[in-house]
């Protein structure tokens, strides 16, 4: 993003400030566009599908915040996503919490796990960091598999009640729930946008690009890395908890390492380090899983081919390549 702005600004004959104004306007228009699309979507397509896309898009956005803007490649995002979905499902089903409290408790647990895992993992860099997050996430998976009393083992927690929002609004109906999920998604998107463009986000980007230099400028980089790690875990948890309410179930799929892989795939296909890329990536991958389900074993083949094509022909991802063509950071 930053380098697109710096290299293209002279070519376009604009000052940096003017680009920033134009970009800000463009982003605002895109945000409004997404909001309008979300309002129209349930009337033209199946709402549960859109809700699933939103949950995964939020998950991918959270991952992108960590990797695209913090430069930290974590292979263990499923731990926060999955554990939050278990806690949310458990709280809603067995403690009878209302959905907003269940989602919040799931998010809180994901945040705590993120804090512990992050504090351990950020001590190392690169491949070692990735391996530590993967190992810790596998421990979370093992925990889920071996505590049938809490997680239901491989059967998962089923028939989670959707309940009443704030004890008042019945969200058992898909349409009613849709607006809650849309609000959570838009809230998450705006929060991430704000984080990226805050002074904090700028420092994270600086650390991503050149950590020794950031240290030499007096930043305590480990603190920044830990905070961005925890933020990413919390938002992944928010997505997982919301998913548990949408599908009324929490299962091992959500904590499995392949879920961590899937979110990497979504982010890469959509565009790493772009703002809107993960949303496009989630839309593409979830649509494929959804509409190709009747193809049986071909789903995985098609998914693999698309990934290979994506990596070979446009490594920047869908939104990344659009940003490159239009010379606008998206």
């Amino acid at each position: 993003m930053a380098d697109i702005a710096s290299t293209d600004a002279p070519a376009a004959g604009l000052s940096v400030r003017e680009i920033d104004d134009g970009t800000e306007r463009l982003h605002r228009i895109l945000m409004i566009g997404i909001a309008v699309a979300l309002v129209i979507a349930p009337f033209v397509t199946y709402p549960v599908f859109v809700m699933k896309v939103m949950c995964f898009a939020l998950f991918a956005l959270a991952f992108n915040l960590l990797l695209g803007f913090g430069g930290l490649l974590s292979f263990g995002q499923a731990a926060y996503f999955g554990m939050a979905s278990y806690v949310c499902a458990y709280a809603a089903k067995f403690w009878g919490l209302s959905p907003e409290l269940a989602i919040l408790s799931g998010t809180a647990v994901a945040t705590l796990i993120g804090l512990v895992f992050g504090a351990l993992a950020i001590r190392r860099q690169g491949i070692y960091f990735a391996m530590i997050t993967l190992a810790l996430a596998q421990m979370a998976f093992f925990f889920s598999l071996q505590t049938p009393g809490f997680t239901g083992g491989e059967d998962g927690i089923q028939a989670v009640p959707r309940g009443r929002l704030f004890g008042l609004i019945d969200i058992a109906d898909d349409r009613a729930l849709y607006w809650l999920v849309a609000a959570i998604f838009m809230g998450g998107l705006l929060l991430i946008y704000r984080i990226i463009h805050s002074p904090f986000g700028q420092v994270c980007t600086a650390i991503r690009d050149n950590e020794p230099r950031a240290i030499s400028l007096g930043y305590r980089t480990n603190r920044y890395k830990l905070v961005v790690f925890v933020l990413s875990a919390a938002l992944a948890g928010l997505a997982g908890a919301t998913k548990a309410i949408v599908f009324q179930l929490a299962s091992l799929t959500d904590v499995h390492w392949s879920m961590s892989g899937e979110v990497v795939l979504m982010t890469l296909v959509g565009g790493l380090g772009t703002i809107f890329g993960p949303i496009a990536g989630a839309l593409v991958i979830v649509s494929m899983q959804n509409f190709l389900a009747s193809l049986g074993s071909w789903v995985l083949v098609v998914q693999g081919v698309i990934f290979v094509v994506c990596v070979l022909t446009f490594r920047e991802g869908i939104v990344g390549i659009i940003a490159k063509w239009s010379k606008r950071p998206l």
Partner: protein
Amino acid sequence: MMHQDRSRPARTGRIRASLLPLAAAFATLLTTANLAVAEVAGGTVKIGVINDQAGPLSDLAGPGSVAAARLAIEDFQKLSPSVKVELVTADHQNKPDIGAQIVRRWYDAEAVDAVFDVGNSAVALAVQSIAKERGKLVVYSAVGTVDITGKQCSPTGLAWLHDNYNLVSGPIRKLKSQGLDPWFFIAADYAFGRNMVQESQAMLASAGGRTAGSVFHPLGNADYGSFLLQAQASGAKVVAFANAGEQLVSAMKQWNEFGMGAAGQTPVALLMFLTDVHSMGLQIAQGLTTMTAWYWDLNDDTRAFAKRFFGMRGTMPTAPQAAVYSAILHYLKAVAATGSDDTATVLAKMRATPVDDFYAPGATLRADNKLVHDFYLVQAKKPAELDRPWAYYKVVETVKPADAYRPLSESECPLVVARPK
């Protein structure tokens, strides 16, 4: 005018009299024909088959279940050509959220009337609550968890094949009565393995048997040497495996390498399908005893179906695949008989009519929505005994429902409990 008409009434009357029964017959025919189509929403019965199409469960159900569904529809169309049937299929990839989402969409947006197979406990439990909420029918074949017709039973969820209770009860009751006791368990260390062992030990205790020991190995374990030696040293007469697929194959390979069959211990697979035996080969599988709800080489009817199935798939049908055929045919017959695809109407008819096919002749549904049918205790043949391809089993004994099912009096299903006894 009046004059001319005078002679007419008599004639018309005669014609009318002779036409009347014919017209009436025609009218009745029309209305019944209309009835058969009119009450079926959209004029088409739409059924969905969802299962694992490419993963570890795809051999025993997978595309074979879809083929079985096609055969069932084909046979049904011969009986009732006027009812239109549409089949949709999907792969849930063994992920409950994907399965739940597809089934939700089928019921809500695509007017699917009934869903079949499912074949993965986690997905099945997810589908169960959706079907219950929507008041739509779902029929399971290879779903192991006893909760599906126990704690989480539903008025619209039917179990057509087996559950873990059926699978452990037959071998234990039959082998115990042959004096094969005590038992040793080698199980995979996760909920499935633990449940199977727990159920087995409870049943063994109630049959007066004894557990010589049990070991739990990590999921995906490759070396069973120490476990097998423990089993050998325990003095157990039966060694039961509560693991499946690749793990069972590795364990049985090492069983043979250790020459444990010769030492007089009987190996039992608590969960095994015909395709598992096919992929491990009789050299490895020989002597392995298991429980199955159906086997293709039972009689002429089963062989006839197996032959048609083989023509389509190049493999013999497994029990879950035969169950899909039976369930779909029974469902469609009920739809044709009632002329409706309303769940309650069709379900009442399905309950009232005994199953009439090669899979479970005369079987009926009981209060917890389990189909009550015979099971078979089978043993994998020695390689030399194999006279035809795929005829891997010899039937040791037919297990009657009384020995294979959890008595309704012990049921945890609210549908049973609510019913006055």
